[in-house]
């Protein structure tokens, strides 16, 4: 038999362990290990398997020293104590220390509090749908642990505590829902924890050929797109990301220093309207369908010279924005000289063979456009192979791709093509982003994964301006129709079999749709959504205050419901027909005679009334006898009960 105190400590520590496991991925391993070791030790001590540490002089000092050491260790490993990850790690080691010195039930309560804080840190770190059940289970456990800690007698079994807290939580679900819908969401931040530059997958603002190949095996979603109307064909789905124009022979980089205004763009064709829900990328740019015209975010800056979308703060949480794009554009002015210089710069001592080839091709063609076509033809006809494993690259990376290995990925071909263009004096740049996406028929949206990452080239042609040329399209035309997984299935032995299965693919769609719903309806729910909801509920011009009123009304209704629901369990049993009639009779009698004491039986009372009012004695006695017979006798027929009720009704003085 476990003592009440041991049970309390074990319950609190188990909740702590659950919370630690929830944030284990967001904290350094050594912190997690310290926390788990401390928790294990604490439970063993509580169960009496290990002797507790005896108090000794200077123990307080030693604990203080350990605390200081751990805080410094955290500070050193993160180089800051500010920030979610550092805060989480700090919470972990502090919780572990609290476990080491916890003795009383109050300490157990503090451990539960720390666990709930860690749960909060976990929710702040990731809100993905798959983790929500884990969060809820931990909340449930924490509530049960609160009951166990509060129970001093030890009479409450863990099962009873779990049942109690499950019931309490279930009853609070309506309130939580109402709060979620109507509790006014204050716009803006009160303070900002420094977000950590977590190593995230996805595109960066530099590209080394082959770098895209690394993220191409990353199956996680990058963003989802919901189109207004019909989606454009797959081959036009070029999702524009960072534009790179500075090449050192190996790596393309985004040129941040120089700014040159671009000419105005004329948008051609029908506008395409869509809404993108972007997963947190920790980067300062957004993606949009090429070429983007307007974006619904106020903090977005559309750069004129390369149509890249920048935001002021890195994207740390999932964001949604509406955008309008056109598939065709025309530049209304010439390229500025400064820009032309920048977009044709090449390191002179690199890739000599590619440069020679470019100059040769240019000499044999009449215009830049013809030259571009000829170069594409060369890419098509020279046995280049599209592969994820292009082999080692040398310092002359373009030459290796074109002449030696003849193998490459989109990044290699884009880099090689842009180099050739620049070598012949045609302004060229690399655009990175995504190509295509997977249509989710369940949810009716397009899912773009990291594996759809792509790189292509843009060259400046007089008359039309920047024109997209995708050399990968001539090397591997199928890429425009299929995803990487279908195209290069031999590279993903495991993934390909997964992707082939029909019903698994359907499950995949369902799950992604659930995620999308979660994202759009729950995670993106904000003040604007709240006001929209009020409008749907019939408020013409909803405001913050009305939201408050709606919230208050919901709260009052919930409290009323809870009071009623909980009262049912403890209500005294209502008397039956016989009992009710007898109560009526005694109330009538109380007007002319002493009232019946709560414990007084019918005959006893009748005798007392009779002594008080001898004139009524006979009637009262008959009534009480009838009641006693009905109540305690073998069987009372309906007729008898009705007679008794009539007697009571006729009772008057």
């Amino acid at each position, binding site marked *: 038999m476990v003592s009440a105190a041991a049970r309390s400590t074990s319950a609190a520590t188990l909740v702590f362990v659950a919370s630690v496991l929830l944030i284990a991925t967001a904290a350094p391993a050594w912190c997690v290990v310290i926390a788990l070791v401390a928790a294990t030790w604490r439970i063993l001590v509580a169960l009496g398997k290990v002797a507790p540490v005896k108090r000794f002089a200077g123990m307080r000092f030693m604990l203080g020293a350990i605390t200081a050491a751990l805080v410094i260790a955290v500070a050193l490993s993160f180089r800051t104590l500010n920030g979610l990850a550092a805060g989480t790690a700090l919470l972990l080691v502090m919780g572990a220390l609290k476990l080491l010195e916890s003795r009383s039930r*109050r300490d157990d*309560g503090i451990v539960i*509090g720390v666990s*709930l*804080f860690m*749960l*909060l840190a976990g*929710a*702040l770190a990731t*809100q993905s749908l798959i983790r929500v059940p884990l*969060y809820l289970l931990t*909340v449930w456990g924490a*509530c049960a642990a*609160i*009951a166990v*800690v*509060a*129970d*001093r*007698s030890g*009479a*409450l079994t863990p099962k009873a*505590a779990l049942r*109690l*807290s499950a019931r*309490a*939580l279930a*009853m*609070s*679900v*309506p*309130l*939580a829902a109402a*709060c*979620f819908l109507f*509790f006014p*969401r*204050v716009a803006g*931040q*009160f*303070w900002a924890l420094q977000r950590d530059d977590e190593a995230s997958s996805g595109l960066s603002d530099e590209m080394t050929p082959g770098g895209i190949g690394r993220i191409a095996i990353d199956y996680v979603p990058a963003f989802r797109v919901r189109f207004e109307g019909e989606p454009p064909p797959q081959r036009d789905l070029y999702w524009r990301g960072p534009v790179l124009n500075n090449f050192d022979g190996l790596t393309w980089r985004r040129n941040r220093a120089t700014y040159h205004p671009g000419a105005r763009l004329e948008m051609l064709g029908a506008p395409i309207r869509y809404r993108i829900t972007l997963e947190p990328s920790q980067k300062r740019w957004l993606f949009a369908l090429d070429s983007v015209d307007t974006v619904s975010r106020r903090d977005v800056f559309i750069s004129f010279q390369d149509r890249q979308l920048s935001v002021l703060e890195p994207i740390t*949480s999932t964001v949604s924005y509406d955008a309008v794009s056109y598939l065709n554009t025309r530049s209304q002015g010439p390229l500025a000289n400064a820009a032309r210089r920048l977009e044709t710069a090449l390191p002179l001592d690199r890739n000599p063979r590619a440069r020679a080839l470019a100059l040769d091709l240019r000499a044999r063609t009449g215009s830049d456009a013809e030259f571009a076509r000829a170069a594409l033809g060369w890419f098509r006809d020279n046995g280049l192979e599209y592969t994820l494993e292009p082999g080692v690259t040398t310092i002359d990376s373009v030459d290796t791709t074109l002449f030696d290995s003849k193998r490459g990925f989109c990044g290699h071909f884009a880099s090689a093509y842009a180099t050739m263009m620049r070598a012949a004096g045609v302004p060229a740049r690399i655009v990175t982003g995504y190509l295509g996406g997977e249509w989710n028929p369940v949810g009716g949206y397009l899912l773009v994964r990291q594996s759809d990452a792509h790189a292509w080239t843009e060259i400046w042609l007089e008359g039309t301006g920047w024109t997209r040329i995708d050399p990968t399209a001539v090397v591997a035309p199928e890429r425009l129709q299929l995803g990487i997984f279908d195209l290069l299935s031999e590279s993903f032995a495991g993934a390909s079999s997964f992707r082939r299965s029909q019903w698994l693919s359907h499950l995949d769609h369902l799950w992604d749709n659930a995620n999308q719903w979660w994202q759009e309806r*729950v*995670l*993106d*729910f*904000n003040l604007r959504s709240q006001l929209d909801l009020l409008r749907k509920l019939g408020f013409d011009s909803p405001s913050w205050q009305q939201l408050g009123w709606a919230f208050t009304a919901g709260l009052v209704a*919930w*409290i009323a419901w*809870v*009071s009623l629901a*909980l*009262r049912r*369990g*403890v*209500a*005294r*049993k209502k008397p039956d027909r016989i009992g009710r009639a007898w109560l009526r009779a005694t109330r009538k009698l109380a007007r002319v005679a002493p009232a019946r004491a*709560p*414990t007084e039986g019918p005959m006893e009372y009748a005798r007392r009334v009779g002594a008080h009012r001898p004139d009524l004695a006979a009637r009262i006695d008959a009534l009480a006898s009838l009641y006693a017979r009905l109540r305690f006798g073998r069987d009372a027929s309906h007729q008898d009960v009705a007679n008794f009720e009539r007697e009571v009704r006729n009772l008057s003085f």
Partner: protein
Amino acid sequence: MPAAARKGSGVLKENLRRRMGAWARRRQGDDRLPIIISTRRVYILPTRAGLAFAALVFMMLIAGLNYTNSVALMITFLLAGFGMIAAHLTHRNLTGVAMRAVAGVDAFVGEHGRLLVTLENSADTARLDIECDVTGGVRAAVDVPAGGTARADVGLSLERRGRIAVDRVTLSTSFPFGLFRAWTYVHIKAGLLAWPVPRGRREAPPEASSGGNAPAVHRVGDEEWAGLREFRSGDSPRQVAWGAYARGRGLLVKTYQSPAAHHRLFDLAAVPGADLEQRLEQLSAWIVAAHARGERYGLRLAEHALLPDSGNEHRARCLNGLALFGTGEAW
């Protein structure tokens, strides 16, 4: 917290508690048992743990709003609702309980007196961990099963001879989550007596006999019929004259008297000494000793006298006399 501040807050708390008690007393008036604890008389406030929980939820709310984090907000709202449900559950645990009876169990000074509080639960759910307390008492917790009764045994430390009056019984509970404490006051007249401690080395007065100087020998079962008297509560059923009852003469008790009527007479005036308390303690010691030996003894305290008798009831009557002597209260 510095010691002075802690003391200050303690005084403040005590003061508030007293005012609250006085207010409730004015509001509720006197009660008569049995009493059913209605919602009108149940008070509820968060405990320290409850306040900490509220602070935690508030911080979670701020964090959730700050980061517009829907999951954090959901957890926060769920916990907030949980807290309110906890208040309801605690309140519900107390309302509807009935206090049936309160009985004091007398004891000697220095021992623990007991106050037995009988609680009844007519509901379908058990009332767990209901604490019963009186001013200066040792809190007792009981579980009252569904549709049953339970008796809380509140200890009272007895420091002075006399009547320990209880004018208020507090029922409280913080079940199930300890985040809230609900309590109620029941204002009733109850109490118990603190008997003087049996203490003293003096020789007891010798046995006397109403028949003269007979030897001081007590002979059991050598008693003579002495008549019938009215039944008094506490009399054994074996003493009841059932034959007389059958003849419709009501409940009567047969009494006997020892022919020799050997007894001791304890007289306060005969106990020397200046300190009244010491003299009463001496009497108490004699009574306890005589009772243990099964002797008959009488007691005289100034103008009051208890005729020689024996048995538990007589012992209690004598000790009650000692407890109340000089307090101005009748016994």
